[in-house]
């Protein structure tokens, strides 16, 4: 199994969710994060004091998937989340050793 972490633009969450669901993904966990990268931030000025805001709102999707799905999922996220502008985000894939569904105690692929 793999643990996929995707950082995307917040407004792409709904399309990505829909696309993944279409692929058969049944669950995922989402976190609001702030991203630092090539994409420029912006400045905020309050009564003459300027603050550079380099961290931009991003959305992180974490999903545990069967090895067989990883490539299609990566491709699917790339296609759906891409706008072509800097800051579209990243997909990271880690090895997942073990998964358990708390409700039932099922493990591994059945737990996903």
């Amino acid at each position, binding site marked *: 199994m793999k643990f996929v972490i995707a950082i995307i633009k917040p407004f792409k969450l709904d399309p990505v969710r829909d696309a993944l669901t279409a692929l058969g993904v049944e669950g995922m966990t989402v976190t609001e994060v702030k991203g630092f990268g090539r994409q420029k931030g912006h400045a*905020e*000025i*309050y*009564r*003459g*004091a300027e*603050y550079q*805001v380099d961290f931009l709102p991003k959305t992180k999707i974490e999903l545990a998937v069967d090895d067989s799905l990883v490539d299609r999922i990566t491709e699917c996220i790339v296609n759906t989340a891409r706008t072509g502008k800097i800051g579209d985000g990243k997909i990271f894939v880690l090895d997942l050793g073990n998964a358990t569904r708390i409700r039932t105690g099922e493990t591994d692929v059945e737990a996903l």
Partner: protein
Amino acid sequence: MKRLRYSAAAMAAMVIGMVFAAPEALAQAAPPPKLDSGDTAWMLTSTAIVLMMTIPGVALLYGGMVRRKNVLATMMQSFAICCLATVLWMMLGYSLAFTDGGDLNAWIGGLGRIFLNGMTVGGLTGTIPESVFMTFQATFAIITAALITGSLADRMKFSALMWFMGLWLVFVYVPIAHWVWGGGFLADAGVLDFAGGTVVHINAGVSGLVGALVLGKRIGYGTENLAPHNLVLSVIGASLLWVGWFGFNAGSAVAANGSAGMAMAVTQIATATAALTWMFAEWKFLGKPSVLGIISGAIAGLVAITPASGFVDPSGALIIGIVAGIVCYWGATILKHKLGYDDSLDCFGIHGIGGIVGALLTGVFAAEAIGGTKGAIEGNVAQIGLQMYGIGVTIIYCAVVSFIIFKIIDVVIGLRIDEDSEREGLDQTLHGETVH
């Protein structure tokens, strides 16, 4: 006209009578002042909405401008000051500020109303119950003290703040209020201050500046992001200040009459003008019109029109608004950064500077037809000198005594919280609460 109040307590009816009624009718005995239910209604209302300026007005304005971890502590300061000032006012502040001090009257009032002793249901100040006048004045003491917290934000011990405010009210606010409105020497000299340019705003601004200097900068000032955490709160606060300021300025007529009406009109005009001026200045110089900018401008306008509100006409208000907008913009965004003090929420930049601008321009634009006194544009250039005299006395007295109080407290219990607490946030370390 507030500076007439002390005498007005005795003479108001006579004066009003002379101005508006047939003068000859007054030749014989002046009828004793009678309660006017309309004036009383307006002063009851004014008291309520001036209280609203501080809680929740100032509490929100300031609370929105600090970081999230300090929002409750900041609001607490205004609320606690409201309570403390009320009790002190009742105990001795009102008496010392607004009763006759006998031989010392040029400097301080008397003790005849200690604990409001002798204040009756039937007693009047002018045409309203004395109880209403006392409470109305209490709300002025409250807001003046609360404004100072803008300079001290994010780093002061709550205990030290309470001590400071208590001492400051007695030794700074009360005497100055007496000098200007209670029949003291500034009133006698002819300094014009309708609703509190000197007593409230210069006073608060200068004490704040002194406090900011004594306390030192916030940790992270100039290096970390100290941006306002929630300007929604500040917009609510500024809006309630604007609304309540009608009670402040028009209420300072101590009557529901043409003077109150004109004070309200010029307040509205100067405020709106200063807000737009600040907004356009920022738009031009920094590229974007900001929310914090427009509300800062509005407050600058409110401050500057305060001393002038019973003396100038609408065109005067328009010009005062423009000047206040520009000068306070400069004070809060340029001067401060140049001089390098951390007047955290710009109590000096807006109230101090705006108060000075307003007090000076009152001397320029006072119109005889409005408030009975001519300003420089009507030829009475000397009024500017008088205004500078009032401004100067206030600044010097307030700065010196505030400094002494701050220093004493610093020595005895310490002014500033420790670094770890400041980092963690005042909400949690001082008050044991957080916004969840």
